[in-house]
Every structure is written in structure tokens, then in C-alpha cells.
């Protein structure tokens, strides 16, 4: 039966229908819904891992134990999982093993725009690149077959417009999961140097066999049309190509590593002009040029940065694009913002006031860097808040600067890779104030469970890690609770943490209002008392606004948006704000 599902949902269904036995992953846009959907389908065991390295290692274990296994993550997650990946390529697999990675060209929700195809080349393993939901569904099964036939992990790579775009899928006949033997094989799975040397040779031989496979597999498909123009492409770019040039000849690559050299050479020879369309890096183009084949149109006309679309492809060939009015300029931007009544708001209101350096991390709280807060000054990767703050404090000490950095990190990010930074900080007698915003949700990706929420991916009760003893066990003596809804207490606590030498940890335990659907009565502004001083606007809440008219506009609260946290009220020196009893329309 036909269904409309996203690429992520299609991978989940393909895994469930394709003999999948075990899946693990870490949430990360645009990959997150894959594992959530495996859980929703409810037929195959799956779980959130503490981070991507753990997820891939667990999937490796699943494969060694004889079950078809899947690890899911976003592109930057593969950096975390790169350590096991680069040796997994040597050991190979027992049952089929897929690493699903979701790239984010255009950086809709990511800190960089890295192209995961490099990892397939780096690890010398096959990579599949689906072009729509049906492809994504089908390729899971093919990836397992390749994995088992060639004794290799397989990367299944999507991009945002595959993971999140919905299309029609017709499911295939289901394969029932078979669990094979749990094999002891020391030379295969113990990568001591002597065994590794043998395996490296096998990796190179495997790659040669995969090159032959690439020549004949239907994953790589020639669609001959007008021979004036031939386009080599893959993934969502294939769809943009078809949109722009329905009649062109196309070599659609489904297996994007290793490339089918003979097939490419033959295709190039059968068309007059050759174009390569690929998002981000010139990975196909450079390899095709290295084959001695001339690419007339590629990255000389198409961007390395951001997404590709049909108009960019038309323009690259000098074809007209649909006439569109220019976008209206000068409109107020509408960036994402802390939810009404989010606990992060009080924290960043105070950090902004104190003007201290804040070493930030990956999560909703990264929005604390945006105006008007502007209270986050570096954000690199998961966990860097604490380790970078430690380095800053060390250099500050050497420079004689008497300023203690603040690190801000969320619960899920702390469990992911903040703990090791804090351990190292304690070990080396560092000097930073670490604020853990423990709202018991992996918020930015949609509120997924983590080791601190007390629930598994399926929502079943599980051991809830106790944050305070955990932090103490890592070597921190000064650990105190924080309540960011109380601005005066928050300011006092942060000041004390900054004045006290050495490692100091504050933990805010207020839950995510969105995830846990917390409702409070809306606020209103007494227009007679409001002086229009705008002090409350510093909390950056979209429920607040100025009355449109008047010389000195006053503040008003949108009762359809306010969720009554009262942080803005604490900014008001004129007692102009109060709750409306029983009223809550906030559309959270």
C-alpha cells in the first residue's frame, strides 16, 4: 500500500522490513526521526545511546553477535564515531551493518556543512545516496546485502531534503529477522597490529571488488535522453536535475563510493557536454577529472556552499529561470527563540547583565548568543563548553587576567561528551564556573529521552542518572542547585560561583516546558503603571511587544503566546505586570 513518508521514516520502515535486529543512535537534525520511527513501528529493538561513538560501537557489537544492525546520526556525529568507524572498516562485519548519516547542506540546523562522502572514501567503504523516500526504503535492504556480501560496513547517507522531504513509498515484502551465530574470530575482530596489517590488505582488495560491483549494480542507472547534455548526479540533486532538465541524459549514482569508472567513461563518451551536479564538495568531479574525463560544467558554475536547486542548475547552463519578484527587503527577521517560559531565558538575562565570557555548547541554549542577550561567545561542538572554558582559564591565569569563564551546557550534551571535559577540568585543578541546564530533554531535536530523563526511547521507565552525585564523582566539590526563574537568586549564585576559585558547578533542574507541556497563567501589563522603560524586553520573549502608537510606547503581553513564567515581571521596577488568573492560551 502506498504511503507518504519522509526519508527518515522510509529508512526506519526499510530497516524494520529488511531483517533489522538492533538499532542505536544519537539525536541530531536531520537524522533524529529515523530511530523514533523504528521505535514507533515497535517491531525491532532500538535505543538512544549517550553519543554517536557509543551508538556505532553498540551496532558493531550487534553485528558481531549476528543481528543486522543500524547506527543513526547526523553528519557531525560521524566525527564522534570516527574512531570506531576507521577500525570497523578493517574488521568488517558478521551480520549486515549500516551507518546512516544525515548531512545538512545549507546548515538548516547544524554548526557546519561537512560532506560525509569524504568519510566513505576515508574509510574505504561503500556509501549509498538515496534520491527520495522510495530509494531510501529500498537502499536499506540493498545496503545490508552489500554489507554481508563484501564483509564491510555500509554508509547510508541522506541530506536534509531527503530525510525531511515526504514522498510516496510502496513497501516490499518483509524479510523476517534472522540472528546468526555469535562468532569468536580473533584475527578478524582483534585489531592488534599484526592482525590489522593483514586486514588492511583485505580492505584494499575489498575496494577493488566493490569497484567492479559499482559497474554492474542497478544502483547506478543511466537514463538516456537527449545526448546534447549528460549529467552525473546523485541524491536530491538528481531530483533537481530532473526538474530543470527532464529530457537530459542522466547517470544517477546510487552507490556514490566507490565510483563506476567504466560506466562514467562510457556515459561521458555518449553525450556532447558533461555536467556534474553534486551538493557541497566536488567529490565526483575531482574523481572524474582524475580519470582523465573532461567535466565541462561542475563547481565552476555551481556553489560549494549551501544547497543546490533546479534554478541554480538552469542558471549554470544559462537557461532561464522563472521570473520572480524580489523578496521584500527590510522585514524584521524571525529567528528561532527560547520558548515562552523556557528556563534558559532567566539564565541568559543574568549572564547578559554580568557581561561575563560564556563558553557555550550545542543545544537550545545556543540561542543565548543571539541579540538582545548576546551572552554566548564561543560554540564549537558537543562538550566544548567545559573543555574550552578550562583552556581559557589556563591562559587567563598565565596572562594575569583575573576573569573566570562560564561554561553553559545542557543535560544531553553533558552526558554526550561534557562529562569527560569536566573530569579533565577537575583532574587539572581548573577554574571555571560550569552551569548545567538539566531540563531533562534533548530539547533542540524535539525533546528526546536521555540518560537523565528516566525513560528509554520507547518511553519505558529506566535508571535515571542522578546529576549531583555524578558531578561530585567526577571530582567537583562545589556543586549547587540553581533556579533560573528567580533572577535575583540566579545572579547571586553566578556571582558566588565566579568569586569562588576553582571548579564550581551550578545545576538548574527546571524541566523543558515544551517537552513536559508545563502551563502557567498568562501575564498582563497594567498600562497605567508601565512607563515604557523597556527593561522587560531584555528577556527576549516573543510574548512581549510594544503598543503600536504613542510617543513612548508601552509594553503589552500577547495572551496567545505568554506562558506565565514571570521572568519579565522581575525586570519591572514599577510593578506593572501581574498574572491573569486561570488564563492560558499559550499554544505550546
Amino acid at each position: 500500500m502506498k504511503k507518504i513518508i519522509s526519508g527518515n521514516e522510509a529508512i526506519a520502515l526499510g530497516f524494520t522490513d529488511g531483517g533489522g535486529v538492533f538499532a542505536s543512535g544519537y539525536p541530531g537534525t536531520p537524522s533524529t526521526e529515523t530511530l523514533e520511527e523504528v521505535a514507533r513501528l515497535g517491531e525491532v529493538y532500538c535505543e538512544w545511546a549517550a553519543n554517536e561513538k557509543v551508538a556505532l560501537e553498540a551496532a558493531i557489537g550487534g553485528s558481531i553477535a549476528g543481528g543486522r544492525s543500524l547506527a543513526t546520526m547526523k553528519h557531525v556525529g560521524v566525527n564522534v564515531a570516527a574512531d570506531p568507524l576507521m577500525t570497523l572498516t578493517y574488521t568488517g562485519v558478521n551480520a549486515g551493518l549500516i551507518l546512516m548519516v544525515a548531512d545538512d547542506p545549507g546548515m538548516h540546523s547544524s554548526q557546519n556543512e561537512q560532506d560525509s562522502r569524504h568519510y566513505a572514501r576515508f574509510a574505504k567503504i561503500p556509501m549509498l545516496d538515496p534520491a527520495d523516500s522510495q530509494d531510501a526504503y529500498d537502499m536499506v535492504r540493498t545496503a545490508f546485502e552489500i554489507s554481508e556480501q563484501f564483509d564491510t560496513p555500509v554508509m547510508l547517507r541522506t541530506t536534509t531534503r531527503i530525510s525531511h522531504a515526504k514522498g510516496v513509498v510502496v513497501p516490499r515484502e518483509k524479510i523476517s529477522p534472522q540472528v546468526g551465530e555469535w562468532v569468536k574470530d580473533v584475527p578478524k575482530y582483534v585489531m592488534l597490529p599484526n592482525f590489522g596489517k593483514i586486514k588492511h590488505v583485505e580492505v584494499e582488495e575489498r575496494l577493488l571488488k566493490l569497484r567492479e560491483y559499482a559497474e554492474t549494480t542497478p544502483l547506478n542507472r543511466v537514463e538516456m535522453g537527449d545526448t546534447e547534455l549528460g549529467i552525473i548526479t546523485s541524491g536530491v540533486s538528481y531530483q533537481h536535475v530532473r526538474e530543470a532538465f527532464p529530457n537530459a541524459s542522466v547517470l544517477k549514482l546510487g552507490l556514490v563510493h566507490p565510483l563506476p569508472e567504466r560506466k562514467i567513461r562510457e556515459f561521458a563518451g555518449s553525450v556532447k557536454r558533461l555536467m556534474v551536479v553534486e551538493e557541497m564538495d566536488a567529490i565526483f568531479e575531482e574523481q572524474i577529472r582524475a580519470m582523465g574525463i573532461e567535466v565541462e560544467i561542475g563547481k565552476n558554475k555551481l556553489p560549494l556552499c549551501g544547497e543546490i536547486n533546479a534554478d541554480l542548475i538552469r542558471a549554470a547552463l544559462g537557461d532561464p529561470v522563472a521570473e520572480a519578484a524580489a523578496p521584500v527587503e527590510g522585514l524584521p527577521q524571525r529567528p528561532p527563540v527560547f520558548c515562552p517560559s523556557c528556563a534558559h531565558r532567566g539564565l541568559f538575562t543574568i549572564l547578559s547583565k554580568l557581561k561575563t565570557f560564556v563558553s557555550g555548547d550545542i543545544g537550545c541554549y545556543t540561542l543565548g548568543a543571539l541579540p538582545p542577550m548576546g551572552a554566548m561567545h564561543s560554540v564549537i561542538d558537543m562538550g566544548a563548553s567545559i573543555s574550552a572554558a578550562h583552556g581559557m582559564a589556563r591562559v587567563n591565569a598565565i596572562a594575569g587576567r583575573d576573569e573566570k569563564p562560564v561554561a553553559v551546557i545542557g543535560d544531553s550534551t553533558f552526558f554526550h561528551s561534557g562529562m569527560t571535559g569536566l573530569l579533565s577540568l577537575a583532574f587539572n585543578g581548573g577554574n571555571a564556573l560550569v552551569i548545567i541546564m538539566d531540563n531533562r530533554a534533548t530539547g533542540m531535536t524535539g525533546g528526546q529521552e536521555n540518560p537523565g530523563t528516566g525513560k528509554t526511547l520507547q518511553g519505558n521507565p529506566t535508571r535515571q542518572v542522578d546529576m549531583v552525585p555524578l558531578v561530585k564523582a567526577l571530582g567537583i566539590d562545589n556543586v549547587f542547585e540553581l533556579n533560573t526563574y528567580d533572577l535575583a537568586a540566579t545572579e547571586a549564585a553566578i556571582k558566588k560561583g565566579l568569586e569562588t576559585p576553582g571548579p564550581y558547578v551550578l545545576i538548574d533542574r527546571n524541566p523543558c516546558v515544551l517537552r513536559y507541556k508545563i502551563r502557567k497563567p498568562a501575564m498582563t501589563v497594567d498600562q497605567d503603571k508601565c512607563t515604557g522603560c523597556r527593561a522587560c524586553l531584555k528577556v527576549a520573549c516573543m510574548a512581549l511587544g510594544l503598543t503600536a502608537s504613542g510617543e513612548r510606547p508601552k509594553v503589552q503581553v500577547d495572551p496567545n503566546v505568554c506562558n506565565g513564567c514571570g521572568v519579565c515581571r522581575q525586570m519591572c521596577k514599577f510593578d506593572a505586570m501581574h498574572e491573569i488568573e486561570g488564563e492560558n492560551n499559550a499554544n505550546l
Partner: protein
Amino acid sequence: MPIFNIVIAGVGGQGVLMASRVLAESALASGLDIKQNEVHGMAQRGGSVISFVRMGEKVASPVVMPGSADLLISFEPLEALRYLHYLKPGGRLVYNKISINPSTVAAGLAVYPDDVEDQIAASCGNALGVDALAIAREAGNGKAVNMVMVGTVLKNLPLEEEVVTEVVKQVSKEKGVEVNLRALAGGAAA
């Protein structure tokens, strides 16, 4: 039929994605191919959201290019203006007249233009503004704005109205069916 391109714009939390789903499922139920795509990831409320729904015999790209939308549905006036350039000449715009302050305006860093609707009227000769919140509340729930907005474009879709109504029934939670159907009808009558 040529491919019919719909752009749905709004603010995170308004139900843009559910409206997109209703349109996509209705197209599938009508025997059409579809691609639907929105950019989501930042779970917070308050960011600008844009969703594409494309329907036709065979749809390739999930992305609608500027200047090629047959229909723009905006859940908020400023967002209508922001994405107006997606409409093709003569394309239809229906927008909800109830504004929501961007965080930049709430923080006093920017001003919400007081002539948004005039600017829309000046640039688009085929625009309709409705008070979707009032219609949704009348239907029984202010959160049904998304179904009101679907209702407002029923006549503009290359789909039978009955098919859309049936899909709304299927995708609604049990207790929400009646409210959603009233919201849909209220939007259609606006």
C-alpha cells in the same frame, strides 16, 4: 495536469506541518504523486517556518522555486510578505490577519511594519486576508487555525473538497474531528 505548487508559511508552533500533511494526503488519495518538504529542526516556538507541497502526475524536486507557487498560504501577515516572491504571476495568496511578533520585535530591536496588509495588497492582486483565529475559536479551539487555513484554499486546490474533508477526518484525533471539520468549513466560508 501541470505540477501544482503550494507554499505554506507561518511561525513555529502554528500547525503549518499538519496543514501540509492534510494537503499531501489529499493529493495521494486523489491519485497524484506528491513531494512535501519543510525545514524543521529547531524545536523552539517562534521561528519562521516554510513548507512546500507539490502535486502532479510525477513530481521530482521537493523544493518550490521562487516565482513558481500557484498558492501561498500564510498563517501570519508578515510571513506572507516574507515569502510573497514565491508566488507566480497571478498566484493566489490567503493569509491569516492575526500577527505574531518576531522575537526581534519583542526585544525592541526591530519594528513590526504597520502597513503589512497594504504592502501585500500592493504586490498581489489575488490576496485574501482572514481572521483565522476568530474562526478557529468559533469552531471550538483556537489551535484549529491550521484547518481554517486549509478551508480557505479548498476552492483553489486541484482536488475534490470531499477528499480533503475525508483526510481531515482521518488525521484528526478523535475528540478533535468535529472542531477540525467546523474549522475547515469556517475557513471555506470566509
